[in-house]
């Protein structure tokens, strides 16, 4: 497979968006490109990869602005999503299935 890619919107961002399905290994950073990064796990197209280590409680920065808060320490190259980042306004999004986005806080029976 050709070089896998992600896109960094703003120079201040600590995450980038996968332009391909990423597998562990080297990933080219396009856009406001910093140095290339090594993916630590599988990250699907459209999802975010940590461009550097992010400490617990630190802002997740995309578009140059905070889009959430790290709920745990995040390693460089890790997948950043609902399992390690929470919204500052929408509490409910922390109660969704990490893969499907389906709400887990609604009782059906």
């Amino acid at each position, binding site marked *: 497979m050709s070089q896998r890619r992600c896109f960094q919107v703003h120079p201040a961002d600590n995450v980038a968006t996968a332009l391909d399905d990423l597998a562990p290994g080297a990933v080219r950073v396009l856009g406001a490109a910093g140095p290339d990064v090594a993916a630590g796990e599988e990250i699907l197209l459209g999802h975010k990869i940590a461009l550097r280590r992010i400490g617990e409680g630190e802002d*997740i920065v995309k*578009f140059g602005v905070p*889009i*959430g808060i790290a709920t745990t320490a995040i390693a460089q190259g890790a997948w950043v999503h609902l399992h390690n980042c929470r*919204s500052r306004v*929408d509490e409910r999004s922390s109660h969704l299935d990490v893969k499907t986005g389906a709400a887990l806080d609604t009782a059906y029976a």
Partner: protein
Amino acid sequence: MRETANTSLVERTWPGYLRRDGRKGIRNLILVVYTVECASFVAHAVAAGEEDVHVIGFSGCYDNAYAIRLMLALATHPNVGGCLAIGLGCEYTQPAKLAEAAEQSGRPSDWFYIQNEGGTKTGTARGKEALKSLRQRMDAEAQIVPMGWSDLVVGAECGGSDGTSGLAGNPVVGRFYDFLVDHGGSAIFEEVVEMIGLREILLSRAATPEVAAELDATYRKAEDYCKAVRQYSVSPGNFAGGLTSIEEKSMGAFAKSGSRAIQGVLRVSQTVPRPGLWLLDSVPDNHFMQFGYTNPNDTEGIMDLISCGAQIVLFVTGRGSVIGSPVAPLVKVTGNSRTFERMRDDMDFNAGTILEGSKTLDEAAMDLMEMVGDVAAGTPSKPEALGHREYFVMYKHQDTPELAAGCRA
């Protein structure tokens, strides 16, 4: 960006139609306005086969101040040079008043009731005759003057978004907006319900403390609206696609505002008071009947932008769309190269080059600027050439005491 823009692009001018209020149009259209759904068939029959004639109107028999303000704003839009209002004859909305307002604004105008003319055939014939005489007067009275970026008002909206919209489609519009505003032009963005989670960021962009207060009130109204209708603009599919928070989704939409200071908040049908970047608030205000949705479809939002005087509207769509608009040409921008290739006849601009790394954001914004200049100079946009004239208005309420109350005042 000032440095990267070449001089000829900055100084570009094209012929425009000078209107009595000082605004300039990039087209010289005749607007046919129907005042109730019952008159819409004849209105469309009158406009059929006439390239310079577009149709708008209002479906309701019972009138609505918001809808009347919108029709008046469109009938006196800079791209419109003449107006023909057509009523059935028993509705509340008065075509004579619309034609009178358009005439007073310096636009040759006419009106009639279908019931008085005899019906479909005679009404259509009456309308066709009216177009001929309106065109003669418009040709005789047209004032063609040079027009540049500082005379231009551009609107932007997104719809049919995908993962590329926040990364490329909206940012390229935002970068172009920075450039347009820096060169004396006006830029309008909307969809305040899609800015939830960005209150501090929105307020930090205010030009003055007064504007910050205005933005805050607009933001809070949108937040209350979202709470009342129990819906935020984010769904399980968005999360599955990689969006982690409402802030992230909102920021992708907000990116089309660029980075310059926001001069204030416009209501639907309010003309841009002075150049710069403006937020359009199309969210309904509190009303005893509680009617109205904020943007029930893309066309409604596009008409709101045009009602504020936008001569061109940029529509960002990652998944692709086949709509156009009356009055002001729609320029369709996608950040998805596959969408652009698949829907080449409908898409005007491919910002996917930014994601592929073949263009920088600034380069793509310059290309978009060239395209906007071409459309302003008369080149039809893709939907305009295809004859797309989608139009939508609905019953809605907004408190706008500073605006003319419309026909019932």
